[in-house]
């Protein structure tokens, strides 16, 4: 079977070489990079615009963004037919291609986030590394801890007030510079699709902007959701298992409703932007009715009706909107709303990537995508549900590891 044949069902007139080549992993990729960009923007809302209520979630969002950054290239690695040649994108980049921007954009963004994290946690690294340096007879874990934190200090031990003030200024600059870079990180992903003139659904200049707006939506939603869950779990854990090294009960308050409300406000703002642009695109297409509108209309209103109008627009946009606007927001309602938003953003990526391949280049045929759910070989795993779920889980695992180096809670005198 040729690549794509296994999960493609062709109907009516389709060219012989046409299959659904860009599978669920290509849906995951913009989804993950969108989460990266969105998490960073949320963090920058505090560092750049000084919205004080977002201080704690800002720290959390930055570390989460870093964890997401490592997970984001994974869909590409799993999708490439020659994953080990993936480095070619950085070795001989062809910048007329949007994908070639991947190397520069990821690297730049990675250095910005890493640098901002360094400035944010530098004091903590020094406070851990120096005492360990003095200590004789370190145990193995202490040795590893020492090496990690000593390297992370990058040879700087000055944690005076003056140097910390310089750190703050650097963080502010980096967070400010990082916003357009984060936009570029996801904007280029939208450009990858929007610039393909051969695809009737993808080709629109609105694509990069739609992607950026929905990326910010997804990033804010996932950060807020994870933050709520983590804070509530901490509260439960501290209440039920009292141990001497745990923080005092009065220090663990769970998540503040004011934080949720303010973050939700920004979430709704970007949701409005995203849905406006998408509806604008749809209205324009229907109004101008160019040659490919006939087949596109059947795909949007018939074949993909449930995916677009029920799952994405209603469950993913309208219902969360109502949930967050009704007064008296509770944590439970917020969690439901956030889960729906994230699902809605995922469906948006799905409807673009898979929807664009749902019709043939002949404009007289259809292709249906049957996602491999139960894998029976490597290909059906990596290009099926198994691969997608693994990648979605990965940032949470990484976050758990990173939180040991960049502690997210109860840090004394944080910036």
């Amino acid at each position, binding site marked *: 079977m040729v*690549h794509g044949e296994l999960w493609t069902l062709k109907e009516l007139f389709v060219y012989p070489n046409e299959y659904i080549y860009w599978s669920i992993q290509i849906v995951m990729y913009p989804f993950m990079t969108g989460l990266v960009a969105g998490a960073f923007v949320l963090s920058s809302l505090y560092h750049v615009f000084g919205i004080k209520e977002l201080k704690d979630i800002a720290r959390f969002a930055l570390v989460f963004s870093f964890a997401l950054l490592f997970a984001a290239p994974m869909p590409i690695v799993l999708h490439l037919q020659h994953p080990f040649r993936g480095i070619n994108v950085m070795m001989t980049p062809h910048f007329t*291609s949007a994908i070639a921007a991947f190397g520069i954009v990821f690297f730049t963004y990675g250095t910005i986030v890493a640098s901002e994290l360094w400035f944010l946690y530098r004091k903590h690294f020094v406070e851990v590394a120096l005492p360990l340096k003095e200590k004789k007879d370190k145990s193995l874990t202490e040795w590893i801890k020492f090496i990690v934190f000593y390297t992370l200090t990058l040879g700087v031990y000055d944690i005076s007030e003056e140097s910390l003030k310089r750190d703050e200024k650097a963080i502010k600059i980096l967070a400010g510079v990082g916003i357009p870079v984060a936009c570029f990180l996801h904007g280029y992903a939208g450009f990858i699709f929007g610039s393909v003139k051969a695809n009737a659904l993808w080709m629109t200049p609105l694509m990069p902007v739609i992607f950026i707006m929905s990326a910010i939506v997804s990033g804010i939603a996932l950060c807020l959701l994870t933050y709520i869950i983590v804070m509530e779990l901490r509260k439960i854990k501290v209440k039920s298992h009292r141990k001497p090294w745990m923080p005092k009960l009065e220090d663990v308050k769970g998540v503040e409703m004011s934080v949720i409300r303010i973050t939700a406000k920004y979430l709704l703002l970007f949701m409005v932007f995203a849905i406006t642009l998408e509806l604008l695109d749809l209205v324009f297409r229907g109004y101008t009715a160019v040659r490919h509108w006939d087949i596109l209309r059947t795909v949007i209103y018939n074949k993909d009706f449930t995916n677009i109008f029920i799952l994405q627009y209603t469950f993913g946009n309208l219902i969360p909107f109502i949930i967050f606007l009704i007064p008296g927001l509770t944590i439970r309602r917020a969690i439901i709303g956030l889960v729906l938003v994230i699902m809605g953003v995922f469906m948006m990526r799905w409807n673009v990537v898979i929807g664009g391949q749902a019709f043939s280049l002949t*404009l007289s045929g259809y292709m249906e995508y049957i996602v491999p759910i139960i894998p029976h070989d490597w290909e059906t795993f990596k290009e099926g549900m198994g691969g997608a779920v693994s990648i979605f889980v990965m940032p949470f695992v990484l976050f758990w590891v990173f939180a040991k180096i960049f502690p997210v809670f109860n840090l004394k005198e944080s910036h």
Partner: protein
Amino acid sequence: MINRREFLKNTVKGIAGLAVPLAAIEIINPRKLHAANSSEKSKVRWVFLVDTYKCVGCGFCVKACKNENEIPYDANVTRTWVERYVLTKEGRLFADSPKGARDGFITTKIDRGLGNFQDIKKEDIKKAFFVPKLCNQCENPPCVQVCPVGATYQTDDGVVLVDRTWCIGCGYCIMACPYGVRFFHPKYHTAEKCNFCYHRITKGMKTACVQACPFGARMIGNIKDPNDPVTKIITTERVGVLKSEYGTKPQVYYIGLDEEVR
């Protein structure tokens, strides 16, 4: 705060330090750029001509192409294929390309996918014909533009090739081609497409499909040679190209191209 002297010192140090590895990039080489614009251009630009009146849908071209270019015979991908179009008196279009016409067209039933077939009676047919398709070796190839690593490119005689040792298999070129000629090679897992049998035409032979066609429906020529019979037809007779609205400037010309052709 860093003062101006320190800043300048560090900048100079930084640039000096980068100068050595920067020489390794060599992305812009003035000499090479000059060669691109010079008049020492190629004397050959390959073009293809298809006569859809002559094509009978026998599929010998597809079979020859598969064998000549080592595309696994039973794989459902092909570098070239033939499409059948049947227009009924009611104004409906039925089109198919069973296995790319590798085995020809030996039934009146049109393949509609998902196991459905449509048999059309002779008296209902207004017009019907066959359209061979292959890579158009466009003058502005969108597939080359979107390759992120420089694995696919165009030679100066106009043929678009794929470097099997460098292609990472992202599939962007396949998505970018408006004509659907690209696919993943089932064995090499790199992008693959018709390359005008480059190994044959550079030796003075014809492509495998041109040679195999018994009816002379396929022809290859050099548009830069005014005495080439293909050039004469393209420049003096009425010919058409596929999907010119995409700005790709395809170099496969069709005689008898109907407006229903997809």
